[in-house]
């Protein structure tokens, strides 16, 4: 039990301890119980930071790679183990920081909630399962924590289960994740059957030494199937429907789970399995990422609920990360994951504090009808909530990809990657850079649309406006920390201050990733390097354009937004975007309704038709046969046959009686005839 293993196990099990503590003792202690969780998370964060520091001390090799047999049946053994390398260390820090900050934030946000302690328990459970995914060294172990993360998100989304919408959102999230999990499980099985192991490093090595040489297609399928898990978890295109509904949960939950960590798990897993993803699989990944990025961005334009905008922006940014990995920009993808976690958490928490104060204001004037999250009721909050405003602006600048902010560093690298990919593959792959840059414009536009609608202009509702005030310290300090973390220099400290150069500790710690399944990393690196300059130019102009448009539309109101939307709507574009491409409705019509109708049919068939009719028909048949045999047994066999014999004998008796005529001589005659007939008979034979 080396100290590093001890620390690693502590990181993993401390949050679980906090979960157990809250569940069993939390309700008895009441509000003060949150100190235990805060302490636990603080320690976890410090341990994570110690691992993080280790990257600089002993760069280059895996900090910890140990595994033990979980259970085995003869030659089939399943091992659990911990594998920490630079990526995992960084990821640990990201998860723990945001989880810790959300814990602090929640002490204020969830004040007065009847199930306060249980909430902290669920947060602990989530952090435990998230750390589990990060530390896992085998795909099966990752799958185990995958589902545990799913259940903790189910519990947290459906935390206020009195609301029917929250309950069904929780279920929707869990089931959609489950769909992805099935794909992942099949992928794992495929790999296990082919290579006989779940361990990621071992798989990578075997692929490197040609385990899949003959069946390249099989490896592609396995890769895609495992990536299905990421689609489900990171809300990529077909399975993204659950993330917007997950906004039903408390905002800190959205910040922690649906912005920074859980959704990033999918990307993290893709990063882990990048080594054995074949070019074909990567192409599929890139396309999915591209579609998601563009589509979610378009939808985000027209949303009015502040959290929905951020939710779709998360989906689109995740699309970015996935596209980055797809095009081979391994480092950029993971870089964006880290930076996105920071500024998206900051955005969500900021929106949380806005909603929180709106909620209090509405509470004061006890108007329960208006929705505290609807941006149309807000406006001019700049003066009322300065800290929230500043942190939100910083985060928006970062997400839009403005230099001096982390977003620029990572997004620029991704866009360079898409351009490089286009240079290498030409043809239809032009779609990737288009979706990349298109999404970049729209992101900048809707982010600043949000800023201007909530913080600038006159307040839409005077009565609410008076009661608005800045949220207490516990909520604002995390905002400040996160906005600081969104500044570029955080990632480029030791080497350069030049805003346009993304070199830094991060780029040195995270290598450009190697791929043993047919992707030639040198070529990709070369193309990346060339595409860097043009990509930077285009991304800068694009970001500026987006912000300018938002300025014109929402700050200076040069263009009347309603008139424009009506004209655009003639083509139905507005409705298309506002109603989320009607995907939910399509799924409902194509999938859910027919499915449940089908189950009704199956149940009806199984019960009314098969059981009552078919099985009971046999019963009826046997009864019929028994009746018939009973009847026939009596009337035929008994009356006709048996009594028949009786009657027959009586009949013959009567006949024969006549022959007893009393004349003795006839008897003798009979006797003689008898003898004669016997004689003749014997003579004959």
């Amino acid at each position, binding site marked *: 039990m080396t100290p590093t293993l001890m620390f690693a196990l502590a990181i993993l099990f401390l949050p679980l301890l906090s979960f157990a503590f809250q569940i069993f003792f939390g309700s008895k202690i009441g509000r003060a119980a949150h100190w235990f969780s805060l302490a636990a998370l603080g320690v976890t964060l410090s341990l994570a930071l110690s691992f993080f520091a280790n990257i600089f001390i002993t760069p280059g090799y895996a900090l910890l790679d140990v595994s033990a047999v979980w259970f085995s049946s003869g030659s089939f053994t399943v091992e659990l183990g911990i594998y920490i390398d630079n990526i995992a260390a960084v990821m640990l820090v990201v998860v723990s920081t945001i989880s810790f900050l959300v814990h602090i934030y929640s002490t204020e946000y969830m004040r007065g909630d009847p199930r306060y302690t249980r909430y902290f328990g669920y947060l602990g459970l989530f952090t435990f399962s998230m750390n589990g995914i990060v530390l896992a060294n085998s795909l099966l172990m990752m799958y185990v924590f995958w589902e545990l993360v799913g259940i903790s998100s189910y519990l947290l989304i459906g935390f206020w289960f009195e609301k029917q919408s929250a309950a069904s959102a929780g279920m929707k999230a869990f089931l959609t994740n489950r769909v992805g999990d099935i794909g992942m499980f099949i992928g794992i099985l495929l790999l296990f059957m082919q290579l006989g192991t779940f361990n990621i490093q071992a798989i990578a090595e075997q692929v490197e030494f040609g385990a899949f040489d003959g069946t390249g297609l099989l490896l592609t399928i396995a890769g895609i199937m495992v990536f299905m898990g990421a689609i489900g978890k990171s809300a990529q295109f077909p399975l993204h429907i659950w993330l917007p509904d997950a906004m039903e949960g408390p905002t800190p939950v959205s910040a922690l789970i649906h912005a920074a960590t859980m959704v990033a798990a999918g990307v993290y897993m893709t990063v882990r399995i990048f080594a054995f993803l074949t070019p074909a699989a990567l192409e599929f990944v890139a396309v999915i990422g591209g579609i998601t990025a563009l589509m979610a961005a378009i939808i985000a334009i027209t949303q009015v609920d502040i959290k929905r905008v951020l939710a779709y922006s998360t989906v689109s940014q995740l699309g970015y990360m996935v596209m980055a990995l797809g095009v081979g920009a391994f480092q950029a993808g993971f870089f964006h994951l880290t930076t996105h976690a920071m500024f998206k958490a900051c955005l969500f928490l900021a929106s949380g504090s806005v909603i929180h104060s709106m909620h209090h204001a509405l509470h004061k004037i006890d108007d329960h009808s208006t929705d505290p999250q609807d941006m149309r009721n807000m406006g001019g909050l700049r003066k009322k909530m300065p800290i929230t405003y500043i942190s939100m602006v910083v985060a928006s600048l970062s997400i839009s990809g403005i230099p001096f902010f982390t977003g620029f560093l990572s997004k620029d690298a991704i866009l360079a990657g898409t351009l490089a990919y286009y240079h290498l593959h030409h043809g239809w792959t032009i779609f990737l850079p288009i979706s990349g840059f298109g999404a970049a414009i729209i992101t900048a536009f809707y982010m600043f649309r949000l800023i201007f609608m909530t913080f600038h202009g006159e307040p839409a509702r005077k009565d609410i406006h008076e009661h608005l005030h800045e949220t207490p310290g516990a909520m604002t300090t995390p905002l400040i920390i996160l906005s600081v973390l969104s500044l570029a220099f955080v990632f480029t400290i030791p080497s350069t201050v030049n805003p346009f150069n993304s070199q830094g500790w991060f780029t040195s710690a995270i290598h450009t990733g190697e791929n043993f399944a047919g992707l030639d990393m040198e070529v990709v690196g070369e193309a990346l390097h060339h595409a860097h300059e043009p990509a930077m130019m285009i991304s800068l102009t694009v970001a500026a354009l987006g912000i300018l448009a938002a300025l014109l539309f929402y700050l200076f109101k040069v263009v009347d937004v309603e008139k424009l939307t009506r004209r655009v709507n003639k083509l139905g574009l507005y409705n298309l975007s506002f109603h989320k491409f009607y995907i939910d409705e399509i799924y409902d019509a194509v999938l859910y309704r027919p499915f449940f109708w089908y189950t009704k049919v199956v149940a009806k068939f199984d019960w009314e038709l098969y059981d009552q009719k078919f099985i009971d028909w046999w019963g009826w048949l046997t009864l019929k046969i028994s009746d018939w045999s009973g009847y026939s047994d009596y009337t035929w066999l008994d009356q006709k046959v048996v009594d028949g014999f009786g009657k027959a004998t009586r009949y013959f008796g009567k006949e024969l*009686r006549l022959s*007893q*005529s*009393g*004349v*003795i*001589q006839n008897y*003798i005659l009979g006797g*003689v005839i008898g003898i004669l007939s016997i004689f003749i008979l014997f003579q004959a034979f």
Partner: protein
Amino acid sequence: MDNLHSYLIISSILFSLGLFGVMTRRNGVAVLMGIELILNAANLNFVAFNRFGGMAELDGQVFGIFIIVLAAAEAAVALAIIINLFKNHETVNIDSADQMKG
């Protein structure tokens, strides 16, 4: 001519005649006569076989004697029955004794 076959034929004729007599004669005594004929036929056969059958002993003839003894006893009893029949029914016609009719 004095061989076994002729005796056998003679006895079979006697036997058939006796049988016919028993079956057709209405009178009790006639029936008795028929029986006597049958017995004699059988007796004739015994003696014939004794002579032609190559038997060392005279078994056949001993049988003959016993048959005669038997015939005597039988005739006596039969006649007693017939007389009784006559006394009861004033007629010897055996058809009248049909109490056994079923």
